[in-house]
């Protein structure tokens, strides 16, 4: 099963890999990696401490807490969480892959625009989408059922956005872009020759699709599915809002219940265990994804004509865009206008909590920015060590740095509250603890981006600099660094984007008087003040769109 066991067909080994292998032989001899190893090790240690701590708390919780949970809640929560995870992952796979096929392989009208439309929902935090759809669709009370009732004179059944189906629906809408982007890239990079061969063997188009096209995309789809699965485990806002209990929301309830943290620690321990399993699978699939890398003989696969399916396909694509992008943004914009026009609401928007709108918008920006800066800085030694000095140890450290994916925000927060308050009390209840949470949670994205950037730079360039008399540090700063900077910035943009949207850790860790846009939106919406929440939500979506569009332009399908 291990990919190093299976000999790779020579034709599929990319030139890049060959280059990398060659360069590795060169560099392992050259610089002494002790300092780098030490730095990378420190970063890994920093990332892993909260995880280990919460695990120890869970294991060390008294037997009574375990027993109480095992009897009543644990199995139900496990079932709920896994069910939602499977449903959303499946739904996101089907939606994402089919939309990717439509824009990348078919002659769907307007596919150039749809590409953007299918990716932009990533700027909308799922809980904000949930707030909008809840206000629209709530049974009896929602805008849509009431409109229908007024038009038709009698109550009409409309699907409820609450509970399992509602949560699954909303989460599919706002996670399918992950799958869309990954499978879009896979469709793009597919060899025309693969399908041609199948067709020459007499396969019908449908059979070609299922037996050749789809299997070739397996790595991309798998990577997307696992990302979605990790996201669902960590999701708090949406499930809490739509009243479907999973581990994350149950931990929250425990924290606002009895005066006892052991139950929350136990639930966190189980949740982290679950996430680690998925992360392990995800890390394995990362390695396999390289099978899709392009070769020089690559030709794009031909566009498939939709024919009489053009209109139905267009309607489906428009429907997806409508529910995942146009409705949320449209409703938020309408509410925002209402909020601005009503003096009372406007006053409470501009001056709420301890501070005003500008204050919490500023908080969102600077904490996310600082988190991005820190994450990228910390990721560089890890990436340098793992890319330039591959070894069992460096690979291990790089893997450990992926651990943030497996620690949902609520668990990071719980761990930091307990840990920092006891060991670093001066940091507790400052905005910096929020920044630390963002770094811990989003570090994997930075590490991956930095590794990818470094992989693109041939170490022979550094070698050349060394030969012409530069020290290793000079070579790094003068040659490598300028070349990897765009990649680092992309990693930073990703951390910035995800930190902006972060809710549960911020909710639990923020000091008094310190609100972010996400927290504000959540507090207002939780109290039922949707119109007040709208301007902050819209602003959050708009500023998220800035780093997102920068990131998307780097994606293959937008080139």
């Amino acid at each position, binding site marked *: 099963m291990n990919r190093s066991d299976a000999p790779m067909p020579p034709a599929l080994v990319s030139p890049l890999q060959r280059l990398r292998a060659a360069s590795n032989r060169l560099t392992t001899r050259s610089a002494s990696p002790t300092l780098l190893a030490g730095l990378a090790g420190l970063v890994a240690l920093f990332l892993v401490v909260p995880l280990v701590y919460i695990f120890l708390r869970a294991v060390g919780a008294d037997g009574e807490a375990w027993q109480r949970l095992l009897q009543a809640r644990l199995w139900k929560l496990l079932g709920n969480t896994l069910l939602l995870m499977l449903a959303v992952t499946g739904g996101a796979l089907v939606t994402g892959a089919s939309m990717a096929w439509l824009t990348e392989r078919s002659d769907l009208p307007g596919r150039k625009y749809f590409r953007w439309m299918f990716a932009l929902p990533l700027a909308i935090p799922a809980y904000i989408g949930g707030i909008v759809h809840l206000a629209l669709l709530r049974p009896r009370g929602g805008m849509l059922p009431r409109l229908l009732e007024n038009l038709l004179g009698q109550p009409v059944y409309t699907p409820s956005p609450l509970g399992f189906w509602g949560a699954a629906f909303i989460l599919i809408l706002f996670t399918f872009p992950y799958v869309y982007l990954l499978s879009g890239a896979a469709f793009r990079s597919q060899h025309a020759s693969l399908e041609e061969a199948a067709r020459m063997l007499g396969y019908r188009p449908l059979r070609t699709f299922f037996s050749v096209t789809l299997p070739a995309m397996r790595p991309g789809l798998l990577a997307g599915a696992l990302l979605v699965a990790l996201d669902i485990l960590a999701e708090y806002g949406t499930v809490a809002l739509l009243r479907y209990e999973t581990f994350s929301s149950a931990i929250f309830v425990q924290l606002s*219940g009895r005066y006892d943290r052991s139950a929350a620690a136990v639930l966190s321990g189980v949740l982290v265990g679950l996430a680690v399993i998925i992360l392990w699978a995800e890390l394995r699939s990362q390695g396999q994804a390289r099978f899709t890398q392009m070769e020089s003989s690559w030709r794009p696969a031909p566009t498939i004509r939709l024919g009489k399916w053009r209109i139905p396909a267009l309607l489906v694509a428009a429907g997806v865009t409508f529910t995942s992008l146009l409705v949320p943004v449209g409703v938020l914009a309408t509410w925002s206008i209402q909020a601005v026009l009503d003096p009372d609401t406007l006053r409470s928007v501009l001056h709420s*909590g301890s501070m005003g709108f500008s204050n919490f918008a500023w908080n969102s920006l600077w904490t996310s920015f600082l988190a991005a800066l820190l994450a990228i800085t910390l990721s560089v030694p890890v990436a340098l060590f793992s890319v330039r000095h591959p070894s069992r140890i460096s690979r291990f450290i790089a893997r450990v740095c992926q651990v943030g994916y497996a620690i949902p925000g609520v668990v990071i927060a719980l761990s930091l509250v307990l840990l920092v308050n006891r060991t670093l*009390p001066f940091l507790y209840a400052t905005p910096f603890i929020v920044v630390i949470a963002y770094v811990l949670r989003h570090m994997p994205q930075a590490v991956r981006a930095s590794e990818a950037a470094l992989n693109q730079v041939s170490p022979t360039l550094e070698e050349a600099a060394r030969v012409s008399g530069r020290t290793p540090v000079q070579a790094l700063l003068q040659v490598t660094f300028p070349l990897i900077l765009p990649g680092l910035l992309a990693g930073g943009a990703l951390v910035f984007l995800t930190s902006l949207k972060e809710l549960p850790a911020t909710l639990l860790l923020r*000091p*008094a*008087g310190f609100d972010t846009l996400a927290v504000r939106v959540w507090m207002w919406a939780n*109290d039922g003040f949707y119109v007040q929440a709208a301007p902050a939500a819209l602003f959050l979506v708009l500023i998220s769109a800035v780093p997102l569009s920068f990131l998307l332009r780097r994606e293959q399908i937008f080139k």
Partner: protein
Amino acid sequence: MSLPRLASLLFILVLLLTACTPASPATPEAPTAALPEPTAAPTEVAATETVDPSISGKLVIYSGRSEPLIQPVIDAFKTEYPEVEVLLKAGSNSEIANALIEEQANTQADLFITTELFTVQSLSQQGIFQPYRPAAADQLPAEFVDPNNNWIGLTLRARVIMYNTDLVAPEDLPTSIFDLTDPKWKGKIAAAGSTNGSMQAQIAAMRQLLGEEETEAWLQGLLDNDVTFFGGHTDVRKAVGTGEFALGLVNHYYYHLQLDEGSKVGVIYPDQGDGQLGLITNATAVAVVKGAQNVSAAQAFVDFLVSEQGQKIFAEQNYEYPLLPGVPLHEGVQPLESFRLADVNIAEAALDSDATFDLMEKLELP
């Protein structure tokens, strides 16, 4: 990647950052004509203390009361004490209580404001607070001032049933909270869930008055009746106001807040008959946290909350029952004296708070 594009992105970011820099703190709340010294007021009562100009700095308030209900009184306090910067963290009572316990060795909060007395009572037993007795404490009913002065009551609220007048005919109205388990209301009731302090307090009170079994039967009856449990009461009142639900179990002022929005809603003060439970009420309270960084500002804030001015804000803006005698109720609020109240021993019920959580957990109350 094209560097110009990167540069432009950075530029946009910088622009955003600078555009959002908080308005310089040098302009605090237009000094409102430097309010006349309250001592100059011609009243003979020395209820309103002199504003001490030396009181300044940050005042950190942890509130179990939701922000819209506490914000007006904070705003009024800030006009009296412009030098004090109030920092608010609002959440559910028990969430905040957990934070206070966690922070005992590293105190962050100066003040704790709660929606019910069980939490302050329980925390006070754990030594989380420091005593303070404002001058006005003598005027409050004795049962709402902690004998050790660890906490002081602010307002009273009644647990009532609000209803949508379009959906419920007068002859069908429930008269008791036990009517809510009647199958004829199946799927038509909204209430707040297990994380809500007022709901927790109601269950704790019922456990004391009726015992575990009857309380459990009532809760099970609500669950069997498909009651929808929301995170907070604002959702409940809005849902009843729009006709999504016929009945809502709320604190009385939520009915008034919804009526204010023009909804067709009515209110029932339940369980007034002979042999019935009586109206369940609970008090909001405030306590100064032990180890508070800014004790003088915290005490000034407590003084303000129990002053006539502070109590008036609770009565007028929130429709609550002020505890300070002589402060008039908001027009339309039915005086508590006209009802028979359930007699709950707060100190005793607070000792039992774990049993309340156990019960909610056992029944899986959402």
